């Protein structure tokens, strides 16, 4: 079945450093969504990417959808302690009336 793989599983960065998490699919995706889950909280929707090569920004966060629509990335510039949490990508297969599949997430820890 379809898999959505995320790397790395964990990342520790010094506050102020940049952070990137990658999401890869074995099949072409119709769209990809990103969610953030704070420790002890629930996943919260961040953004959705639909178009090939699409890039969207939210303040210090940059989201990218690959040209082949099989991969995506989330980049955080100059991390802050408020960025701590787990970042999930979730993708839906192209041409399939199917539910989205969540990756296992990347847990970000910020060192002060």
């Amino acid at each position: 079945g379809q898999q959505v793989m995320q790397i790395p599983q964990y990342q520790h960065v010094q506050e102020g450093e940049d952070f990137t998490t990658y999401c890869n699919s074995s099949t072409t995706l119709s769209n990809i969504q990103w969610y953030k889950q704070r420790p002890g909280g629930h996943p919260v929707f961040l953004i959705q990417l639909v178009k090939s090569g699409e890039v969207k920004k939210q303040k210090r966060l940059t989201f990218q959808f690959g040209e082949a629509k099989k991969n995506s990335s989330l980049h955080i510039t100059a991390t802050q302690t408020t960025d701590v949490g787990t970042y999930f990508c979730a993708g839906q297969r192209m041409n399939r009336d199917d539910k989205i599949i969540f990756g296992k997430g990347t847990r970000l820890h910020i060192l002060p």
Partner: protein
Amino acid sequence: NAGVTQTPKFRILKIGQSMTLQCAQDMNHNYMYWYRQDPGMGLKLIYYSVGAGITDKGEVPNGYNVSRSTTEDFPLRLELAAPSQTSVYFCASSYSLVQPQHFGDGTRLSIL
């Protein structure tokens, strides 16, 4: 507008007991989902529903049952609780399969 409401927030069960986790949404979403999240892990889909009267299995349905008699409610039933079902359970809803999912705060369930 409460969004997705889950009850209870916490519960401890003995092995073999049964219980129902409640989930209600007031956004008139057709799609509803149940996930479980084990400590430090990602989200695993248990069951989902595309509308009242329609349910389907997810990745890990064994040991659980669901029903969807109304658009608003999507309860999850554990018939014979087992220690392996200790987890955090999230209910989510969305307007469509491609629209973002809105999550409840979760139910933290321990089975001893």
